[in-house]
């Protein structure tokens, strides 16, 4: 039915707009420059559908859709979290021998005005270098994003078990192959 189909995209747009607006205002505001009249970059940035791959130790990564709800370009320069001493903004590139490799993204993640920057396995991601605690599925992780203007915003991501996209991190992270045997060994208890 053509009429029915014509309705669906409009409804979907409305829903998407409502979602963005409901999570787009959690800037900490702590680093706002009081002399500046322009709003800081962080107040426009949100992470939609944020998730982190479960791991016990070593490396893992955070994914989701970074959104910019402003008329200006926004650059995410760095990220930090209580779960690690070191996070990096990574991109995945093809090397000269044809294999894929991850490397720090020069210049950070640039979000176009009202744009979305997708972080996904096999693509750009927030690399968590050295976990200081096990990340169990169902946990909520808070990540602080710092913009090029120095403003920051806290975003949350849900820890999920994940074995897809041929994701392998170096340095022998025991959680990185995500296989059943490995993850079934993971203590889901309350300790």
């Amino acid at each position, binding site marked *: 039915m053509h009429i029915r189909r014509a309705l669906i995209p409009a409804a979907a747009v409305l829903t998407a707009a409502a979602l963005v607006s409901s999570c787009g205002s959690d800037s900490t505001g702590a680093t706002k420059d009081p002399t500046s009249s322009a709003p800081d970059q962080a107040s426009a940035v949100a992470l939609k559908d944020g998730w982190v791959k479960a791991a016990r130790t070593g490396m893992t990564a955070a994914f989701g859709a970074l959104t910019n709800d402003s008329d200006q370009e926004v650059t995410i320069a760095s990220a930090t979290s209580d779960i690690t001493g070191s996070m990096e903004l990574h991109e995945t590139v093809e090397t000269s021998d044809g294999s894929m490799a991850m490397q720090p993204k020069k210049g950070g993640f640039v979000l176009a005005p009202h744009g979305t920057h997708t972080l996904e396995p096999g693509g750009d991601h927030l690399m968590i270098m050295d976990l200081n605690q096990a990340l169990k599925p169902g946990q909520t992780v808070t990540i602080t994003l710092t913009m090029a203007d120095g403003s920051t915003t806290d975003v949350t991501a849900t820890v*999920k078990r994940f074995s897809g996209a041929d994701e392998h991190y170096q340095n022998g992270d025991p959680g990185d192959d995500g296989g059943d045997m490995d993850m079934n060994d993971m203590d889901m208890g309350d300790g």
Partner: protein
Amino acid sequence: MDESGLSRRHLLQTGAAAFGGAGLGWSVGTLVESEQQLVSPGATAADRTFGAETIAFAGLHQAGVTTSPTTHLSLLGLDLDAGVHRAGLARLMLLWSDDARRLTTGQPALADEDIELAELPARLTVTFGFGPRVVSDLLPAGHGLALAPLPPFRTDRLTNEWGQTDLVVQVCSDDPVALAHGRRVLLKDGRGFAKLRWTQDGFRRSRRAEPDGSTTRNLMGQVDGTVNPSASEANDLVWLSPDDSVRGAGGTFLAVRRIRMHLDKWDRVSRAGKEFTIGRRLDNGAPLTGAEEHDEPDLNATDEHGFPVIDPASHIHRARSKNHAERFLRRAYNYVVPDPGLPAGEDSGLIFLAFARDLTAQFVPIQARLAEQDLLNQWTSAVGSAVYLIPPGVGQTTADAGDFVGSRLLTRA
């Protein structure tokens, strides 16, 4: 109406809808009306797809209880792994609630790469429940709810295979692909927390095989589920109130009974004998004293020889309680499982799901009466039995780490 006439009108109305979509004054009601006008003998059924239809996950109550039953059911019984206690269960319920929230709106689950499989939920619902061990041992004290196992009944032929589990997940949809995908996502996220003990797959008539709201037919051929509380009665009979439990208000209890039907034996019964057994006609489900399905049975009526028309041992006579509070919501699905070891080559029956605010007061007395005497018992036996607390629904339509099914019961106030 000839083809060209229909397509011309169709075009006109499509144009009107496109115009209306750009402005603000066009009401949905008008559009729906236009669509109904288009439904004519000339319109093809292919235009009327239902894959995109959704049932809201968020609400005071979980969906999938008073929701009009979908075509397909997958009921999953899982046991929590050793070492998974309150905090682990809370993390599982957060993951599962997030999965359900997304899948029931046609969105892929978080971190799921099979995004196309989520596109058509076809009224997918996901309903979660806690078994007696979870209620007594894992929920913080003070919830005021008690969940006792059902007492043994004379007709029970229970096997551990279909027994009580720690958790239940009821997945329902009008589409078997949506159902299979939803089930797989939920089972994947359950790994490391709980192990699947059983899956009970069930089905009813296909969507639009008969008008919405029709009472389904079970595999013995009977119209099954005529007497069910109305939506307004559900508040008293189904949903827990704040007086029952502040943290559980909006929830309910579920009794699962897997009832095997001995269809080879049932085949040997005459049509009149089958109707006598139930007390209802086979063709339209009317009581033997009435003409239409929803006619009130006259349990005192006698035939010309002075015998009761509806036998005192018949199913509807025995199932009817003088106590109006002894009623509950039935949401049954048929099952057929291939079993080459049986003469019939398959095991058939009913996955009987009873929802009640108080199983002991509402369900047990009826079940006890039926077990004590019911002509139908000669052709049926209960092979599985379990009870669950169905927590209230979630409040938010968007993800919120503190708002998941069971959060009010699992988080100490």
